[in-house]
């Protein structure tokens, strides 16, 4: 990637919102959560099985609901505001809604089996489908309509793409480790820091990496004690068996929050808080298993509860 594209990514990141001053970064020994909001539950029909979550600068919460085939908008207080979408393959319709990202007044959503990214406005009006050359595994909006997506390849390895708002690929790099032979071992989630560097957490490999904007490896670490990815040979396919890391997000101070999968001591609950160099600063457990983590610009953490019936919003407390 040339300097111009790196500058583009940096400019896009700068547009994301307020940054907490670097000199106010807390020294972490312990992280705890304080619940501040709960949306949905067994007694109401707000959510059925939410998958993707995103927030805008005003604190509005956008949620994809897989069982309701819809995109929903809630106010900062958790009040239901609006819903769009239904089961189908037409504009603004979903078959398997999965990932969500927000930048400015634009909401970006993916459907599991669609080669593209759906763009909505803040009132949930469908705008268009941005073409994408492969199926999307993980998605982030960088600002100014620039998107980053981890996409699945076959037989080529998974790739991390940076695209403009028209779907034109500005840069890309592969995610695979050539030593790993097996289906889906390159599946990963990722987050970006304000320097445009990527933190990549692999779904089926005990590995978290930090890479430059051009994909050069800065460091790669294991945290779960898994030396070789666990696979099961079925029908001549080496199938990954256990999830290692389900998601990664950055807080306002640049700490890296990595959500452990099945191999974590508390499956799908343990969160490893890393420094920029990959050192573990703290570990905490979510109250309930979650499939993803989202941290908004105000430093609130969002996670799943009740197997997707409930979305919880937490204040992050640092000791």
């Amino acid at each position, binding site marked *: 990637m040339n300097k111009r594209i790196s500058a583009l990514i940096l400019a896009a990141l700068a547009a994301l919102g307020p940054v907490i001053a670097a000199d106010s970064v807390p020294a972490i020994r312990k992280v705890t959560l304080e619940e501040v909001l709960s949306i949905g539950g067994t007694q109401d029909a707000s959510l059925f099985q939410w998958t993707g979550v995103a927030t805008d600068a005003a604190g509005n919460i956008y949620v994809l609901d897989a069982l309701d085939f819809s995109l929903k908008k809630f106010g900062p207080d958790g009040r239901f505001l609006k819903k769009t979408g239904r089961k189908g393959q037409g504009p603004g319709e979903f078959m398997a809604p999965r990932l969500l990202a927000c930048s400015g007044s634009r909401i970006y959503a993916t459907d599991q*089996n669609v080669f593209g990214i759906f763009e909505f406005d803040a009132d949930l009006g469908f705008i268009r489908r941005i073409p994408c050359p492969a199926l999307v595994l993980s998605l982030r909006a960088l600002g100014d309509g620039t998107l980053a997506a981890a996409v699945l390849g076959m037989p080529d390895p998974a790739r991390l793409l940076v695209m403009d708002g028209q779907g034109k690929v500005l840069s890309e790099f592969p995610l695979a480790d050539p030593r790993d032979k097996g*289906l889906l071992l390159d599946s990963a989630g990722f987050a970006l820091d304000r320097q445009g560097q990527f933190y990549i957490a692999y779904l089926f490999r005990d590995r978290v990496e930090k890479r430059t904007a051009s994909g050069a490896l800065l460091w790669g670490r294991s945290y779960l004690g898994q030396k070789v990815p666990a696979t099961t040979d079925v*029908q001549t396919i080496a199938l990954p068996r256990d999830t290692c890391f389900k998601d990664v997000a950055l807080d306002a101070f640049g700490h890296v929050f990595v959500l452990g999968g099945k191999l974590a001591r508390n499956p*799908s609950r343990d969160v490893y808080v890393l420094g920029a160099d990959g050192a573990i600063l703290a570990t905490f457990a979510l109250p309930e298993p979650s499939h993803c983590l989202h941290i908004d610009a105000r430093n609130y953490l969002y996670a799943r509860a009740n197997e997707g019936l409930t979305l919880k919003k937490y204040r992050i407390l640092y000791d």
Partner: protein
Amino acid sequence: MRAIKRRFGKLTATALLALILGLGLGIGAPPQLRASVCEEALFRCLDDFFNQVLGPFGTVYCGIGFAFCKKYIDPEG
């Protein structure tokens, strides 16, 4: 079996037989029968005629479903 029936009654003997058969099936079952919900979904997807015709693209289509299933749905993760 007759001795068990005489001693414990017909109902208990039937329950015992069912238990033994059940255990036997469980122990001897191939991996596919004990696979999690995501593995089963993947097998069905890969066995689908259209996905077989699609070749590598069919495998990608099924594979991404498996990855999301493991992440979002499988309670065992």
